[in-house]
């Protein structure tokens, strides 16, 4: 687990905003290279790792999709050397003032999100209320002329927060949504080195989930899996968050999704397996859509039976998200054991409960 944590911290320290995933993809590819038989990149940047099954061809295919893109910001204007910006992915403007960022100009510049005083803002942005994102600046500390040389419209701004070990098990950082799941898929691939499986496994680090589910709509079209699992973070219970059915205790197990995006037979299989492995888990009820890659994967081409696994995470879409390593390794283990159990009977047995 120590190694997995080091890998996770390494990918947390890299940018990789939606549509600009290259920096993080390279490091994931390096990690996956020895764990898979083939590695490739889709036409829009998703990473595909293929680990072949041991059986006579043709093999059934299982797809694991964990998005690697993170949220961040983008420069929209430069005024007196200060940067205006917009968001990539969904950001609550209230978390921004005072946040350390990196501006990816001609070279990387440290920056700081600043909130102008009320007297410089329109009346509706009065003191004591939230200042809209469009009125915030990033200050790089450089003078106007230098900023104009180094930065232009469309340059990215990422969170500069380094990962923090809160405890031996809990890690804080930005982009844990969804690099935590990339780590879980990596843990699964590691375990698959030691166990026999007959199905081909396609590990996908997908792109642009936060914006358009870009990787999830496209990679399955190319791979045409028989089954798919989307692995994403879900809401851990935290101060101020609702205590209801859609939040989960941190470090007390992964979640198994249930709802229209999920094939009921897969739900049953995962639940049974988790119990057999004596692993804690929770139902993640998704009455409508899952808000994950599975929303897209399920409706690619002729349709793909899908499952959603969730890793509880606190403070989603801030620079200090918190996750438990134990939940990550449990998720990886559950995936690997599920894959080990896939055989020639899996698809014929994947039935609707109304089918005799």
């Amino acid at each position, binding site marked *: 687990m120590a190694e997995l944590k080091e890998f996770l911290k390494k990918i947390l320290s890299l940018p990789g905003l939606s549509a600009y995933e290259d920096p993080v993809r390279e490091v994931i590819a390096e990690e996956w290279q020895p764990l898979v038989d083939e590695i490739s990149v889709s036409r829009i940047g998703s990473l595909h790792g293929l680990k072949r099954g041991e059986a006579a061809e043709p093999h059934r295919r299982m797809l694991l999709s964990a998005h690697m893109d993170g949220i961040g910001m983008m420069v929209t204007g430069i005024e007196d050397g200060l940067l205006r910006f917009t968001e990539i992915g969904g950001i609550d403007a209230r978390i921004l003032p005072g946040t350390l960022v990196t501006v990816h100009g001609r070279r990387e510049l440290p920056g700081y999100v600043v909130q102008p005083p009320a007297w410089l803002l329109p009346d509706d942005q009065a003191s004591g209320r939230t200042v809209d994102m469009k009125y915030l600046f990033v200050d790089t500390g450089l003078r106007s002329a230098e900023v104009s040389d180094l930065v232009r419209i469309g340059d990215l701004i990422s969170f500069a927060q380094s990962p923090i070990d809160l405890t031996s098990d809990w890690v804080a950082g930005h982009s844990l949504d969804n690099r935590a799941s990339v780590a879980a898929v990596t843990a699964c691939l590691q375990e698959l080195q030691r166990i026999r499986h007959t199905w081909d496994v396609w590990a996908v680090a997908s792109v642009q989930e936060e914006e358009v589910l870009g990787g999830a709509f496209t990679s399955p079209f190319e791979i045409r899996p028989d089954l798919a699992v989307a692995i994403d973070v879900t809401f851990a219970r935290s101060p101020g968050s609702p205590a*209801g*059915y*859609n939040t989960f205790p941190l470090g007390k197990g992964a979640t198994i999704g*249930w*709802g*229209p*995006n999920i*094939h*009921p037979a897969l739900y049953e299989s995962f639940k049974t397996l988790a119990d057999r492995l004596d692993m804690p888990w929770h*139902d993640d*009820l998704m*009455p*409508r*859509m899952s808000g994950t890659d599975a929303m897209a994967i*399920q*409706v*690619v*081409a*002729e*349709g*793909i*039976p899908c499952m959603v696994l969730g890793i509880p995470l606190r403070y989603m879409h801030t620079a200090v998200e918190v996750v438990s390593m134990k939940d990550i390794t449990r998720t990886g283990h559950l995936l690997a054991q599920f894959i080990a159990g896939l055989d020639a009977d899996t698809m014929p047995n994947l039935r*609707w*409960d*109304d*089918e005799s």
Partner: protein
Amino acid sequence: MTPKKAALSQVPKIEKAQIALLERLSNAVAVSGAEGEVRKIVMAEIKDLADDIKVDALGNVLAVKHAKTEPALKVMLAAHMDEVGFMLVDGEDGLYEFETVGGIDARQLPGKPVLVGKDHLPGVIGAKPIHHTTADERRNVIPVDVLRIDVGNENGKKIHAGDRATFATRFQRIGPSLVGKALDNRLGVATLIELLRHSPAHIEFQAAFTVQEEVGLRGARVAAYALNPQLAIALDSTPAGDLPRWDGEESPRYNTKLDAGPAIYVADQGTLSDPRLIQHLLRTAETYGIPCQMRQPGGGGTDAGAIHKQRAGIPVVSVSVPGRYAHTAALVARLDDWQHTLALIFHALQDLTPAILEPDRS
């Protein structure tokens, strides 16, 4: 006039058997994502009617009846099996918090009986006694998250979070009307079964009984991709909003009117129907003297919205049976509107040839 009358006599009739099937379909519970009960009825009804039947990865029933002659036009007809409803999400001792699935107005919920879980256990959605409310409070909508489904402490052990529920309304035929909880879109499902039974020999008939329409046209999307038709017709139910206006003035807005026949779509939120298909339906209605109406262009949508964007594009049109009070405990439709819808599509298919696609879309 004579051939027209002769043709009319071949039209499948809505009789006791068809109404009985609609009753079973309407009373079955099939909330989006859990369409099993309706699927089971459909599978049993069509097992001898098609050459090739399969259930796909989302739970759509795709049934193909091959044409007897060549060249045959591949025509997809889609009707969604799912209905709006609820999912229990949390609770104990028989009292459950729930979420709505599909578009349901929260004002429709308090004080309604419901059916819960696979065994259709009876339950109720209660409301605070009027005695404990204030006048101010009564002007506000009761939000869904304070409502509970109550099945009683004993049955509480037989259900759990994740189960689905619907309004409990039983199907009735009242005079000229059909009343039921899920006539949106079991009317379409029943129509499609009848059309499959009476499909013309020159058409490659692709019936898609789809899932998850109410949560985003998801079943139709993969169904259309798989079937890859040359054109498609979505059969659905659409609101009839032809009630009196508060001030007695003529209302410019009604969507459709009851007793005015099948509603043909020009434009809704998801689709601009193919003008070639609209014209074909209007011509058919005129030729055979079938009443029909144009649905008012505007919001809402059908499976057509997903179908026409599949692959390199599929010409579509939607036809709906008008019905009052959709997405509430009871929908009211007219038997005559249903019969005319069946007749319109039946004749439209009989008279459909590949020539319809020869001119480019206007």
